[in-house]
């Protein structure tokens, strides 16, 4: 613990640890220093200079984001000189920025817009010097508009340091510098895993999702099409605050009502296939444990993680569960099981997924995910896109009367809903795997050791009839790297994995922190949304996937049993090895069952 020092900020006396920066000290005590490139979740890049403050006895102003506090320091955050500096800096950024606020995806959420407004800047003070660059829409997940980029570097920090994906880098130098990918190939031809954390931390609209809203509206308004929709666990805890409700409000039934009002023909729920995933993945896990395999089983729900694994750990692809993600299971079943049960021509079905995720757009387009005879999932909308559709349709979300979903593929247990939080898949799997191994129910089913935001979580359970089951959970790809490197080293040296079962989610916090989540998706709100999912789980009558009556029905009427031939065909997949530089497929790393 660093020792405490006395600091005065605008006359307020603070006692803060000596390893804090001025901006951290101010934030901790509710004192606001204007800023643009600084974000509390990320190490400072000190690019913009907006957070300059005056410090007594220092000849020039200093950036509060990267200046540590010191004993007796007296800081002034607001003076005539500082206000002039900040204004000039922001005016210069605006002169090199494509100012199209009313039509920009980040309108009303943009940190540059807010700051310019707060500083009282009038438009076009300086001449426009923006040299327009082409927009990069090569990726199915992410669109990069360099004309809106302010060079803050947050996307590069999150891509390289938090996610260790190494797609984005600062290219050129000085005034010409801007984030791009190696050899300007476009994000669609790079090591980018589509996690979308860059879109979450971009302060402007320079990085956004590749929107499919128009295509979905067209399908909805086409009388020939039968449009079925599924929503990921995280969606129901991420809508409320956009419509004036408290952060972390649990709103599944308002969500169904809004979807029906928008015009979807059938409103189902991804949580149903989350429960189904547990049955398939859990059975796979139990089979692996019983076989005495020394290699671990690793979850496969997170498409950012799957592409990351294909890129950096293809040698361990055989350890990754062959179970498709809940989204892709739903997609395959929507054009087979659902079509048969309801007598609908699968060719007319348009399967839409609402996901907290940009990488799901890439997953939906994987050519191998066509086991229904069609592309299993047609369109993926992020939470942000869904919110835009709700607003476009003029729906008063906070006051819309609650509705139930349609039946067949919508019932879910608490195990399905906690998929959205880091550790949730692990906890859900443990609840059912316990039952599958012992034939009894796990009494204390809340596995607290795998909850929370610690980067790597470990737990060991005593399972009667099996022995010690050791598990690990990682979220954020730099943490995934830590776990995977240990697995790789351990397999190479001792021939045995340190853990039996591993959950990995690409985004910090799990899906609630996904790259498609609403703007302002910082660590604190991820934690709150994660808690909301655990609250929903606590209050549901059924909390174990194997107790889901619709899951029981689909096995009885259609699939037979977990890992049956039909289940393996529709619900399981295989993986590739990909180039670190282009993201392109090199070869198949595993094979379809």
């Amino acid at each position, binding site marked *: 613990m660093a020792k405490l020092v006395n600091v005065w900020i605008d006359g307020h006396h603070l006692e803060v640890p000596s390893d804090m920066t001025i901006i951290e000290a101010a934030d901790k005590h509710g004192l606001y220093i204007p800023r643009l490139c600084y974000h509390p979740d990320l190490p400072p890049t000190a690019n913009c200079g907006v957070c300059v403050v005056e410090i007594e006895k220092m000849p020039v102003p200093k950036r509060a984001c990267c200046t540590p506090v010191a004993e007796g320091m007296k800081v002034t955050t607001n003076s005539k000189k500082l206000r002039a500096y900040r204004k000039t800096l922001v005016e210069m950024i605006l002169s090199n920025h494509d100012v199209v606020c009313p039509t920009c995806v980040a309108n009303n959420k943009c940190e540059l817009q807010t700051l310019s407004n707060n500083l009282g800047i009038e438009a076009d003070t300086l001449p426009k010097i923006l040299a327009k660059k082409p927009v990069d829409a090569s990726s199915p997940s992410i669109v990069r508009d360099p004309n809106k980029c302010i060079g803050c570097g947050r996307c590069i920090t999150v891509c390289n340091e938090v996610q260790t994906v*190494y797609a984005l*880098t600062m*290219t050129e130098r000085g005034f010409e510098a801007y984030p791009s990918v190696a050899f300007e190939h476009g994000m669609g031809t790079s*090591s980018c895993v589509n996690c979308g954390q860059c879109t979450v931390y971009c302060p402007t609209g320079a990085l956004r999702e590749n929107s499919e809203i128009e295509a979905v509206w067209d399908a909805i308004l086409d009388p020939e099409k039968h449009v079925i929709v599924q929503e990921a666990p995280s969606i129901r805890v991420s809508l409320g605050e956009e419509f004036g409700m408290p952060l972390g409000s649990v709103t599944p039934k308002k969500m169904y009502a809004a979807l029906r009002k928008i015009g979807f023909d059938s409103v189902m729920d991804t949580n149903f296939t989350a429960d189904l995933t547990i049955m398939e993945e859990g059975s796979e896990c139990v089979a692996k444990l019983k076989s005495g395999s020394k290699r671990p089983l690793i979850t496969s729900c997170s498409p950012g993680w799957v592409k990351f694994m294909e890129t950096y750990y293809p040698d361990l692809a055989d350890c990754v569960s062959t179970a498709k993600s809940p989204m892709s299971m739903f997609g395959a079943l929507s054009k087979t099981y659902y079509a048969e049960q309801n007598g609908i021509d699968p060719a007319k079905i348009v399967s839409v997924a609402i996901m907290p995720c940009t990488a799901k757009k890439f997953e939906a387009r994987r050519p191998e995910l066509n086991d229904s005879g069609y592309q299993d999932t047609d369109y993926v909308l992020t939470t942000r896109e869904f919110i835009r559709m709700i607003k476009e349709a003029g729906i008063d979300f906070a006051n819309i009367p609650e509705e139930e979903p349609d039946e067949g593929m919508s019932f879910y247990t608490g195990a399905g809903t906690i998929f959205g939080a880091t550790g949730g898949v692990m906890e859900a799997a443990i609840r059912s795997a316990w039952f599958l191994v012992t034939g009894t129910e796990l009494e204390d089913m809340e596995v607290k050791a795998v909850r929370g935001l610690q980067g790597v979580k470990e737990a060991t359970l005593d399972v009667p009839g099996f022995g010690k089951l050791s598990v690990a959970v990682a979220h954020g790809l730099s943490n995934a790297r830590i776990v995977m490197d240990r697995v790789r080293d351990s397999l190479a040296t001792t021939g045995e994995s340190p853990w039996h079962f591993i959950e990995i989610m690409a985004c910090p916090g799990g899906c609630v922190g996904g790259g498609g989540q609403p703007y302002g998706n910082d660590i604190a709100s991820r934690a709150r949304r994660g808690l909301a999912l655990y609250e929903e789980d606590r209050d549901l009558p059924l909390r174990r996937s194997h107790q889901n009556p619709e899951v029981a029905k689909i096995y009885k009427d259609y699939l037979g049993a977990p890992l049956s031939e039909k289940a393996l065909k529709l619900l399981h997949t295989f993986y590739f090895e990909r180039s*670190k*530089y282009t993201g392109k497929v090199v070869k198949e790393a595993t094979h379809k069952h």
Partner: protein
Amino acid sequence: MYKEIFSKYEPTKDNLIYILHEIQDKHPQHYISEDAVDKVAEYLKVPANHIYGVLTFYTMYSTTPRGKNIIRLCESPPCYIKGTVNILRKLKALLDVEIGETTKDGHFTLELCACLGVCGNAPVMMINEDVYGDLTEEKVEDIIEKYRRAK
């Protein structure tokens, strides 16, 4: 070629710049290809995007093929004040290229660069390893002619 170059350097990050220079110098077209970046990334265990960032940061590196003779005209303030603009206009006309382009015969590439350290003789340019100072438009014509004859 890469093997031979790598054998001279330990696989540590601080050797990146030297390795890149040597690769570029050995390439007949004086540039660093994607393939080269891949090989260096593997050898040094440095992500390819970082290497690309370094390549575009320093003007001495090129990621596109260049001509046999590389002309680097200094655009730093002392040279600029003493007439870089006029020299640049003359070079563009003589070679029929824009900045960063290579002549059709592949003989010259025209580039701008930062200070070459001989400000006393501004304006200055460098062709390959040789520095030419106190440039005038006439002098530039003679120098280019000399390189043309050496074809």
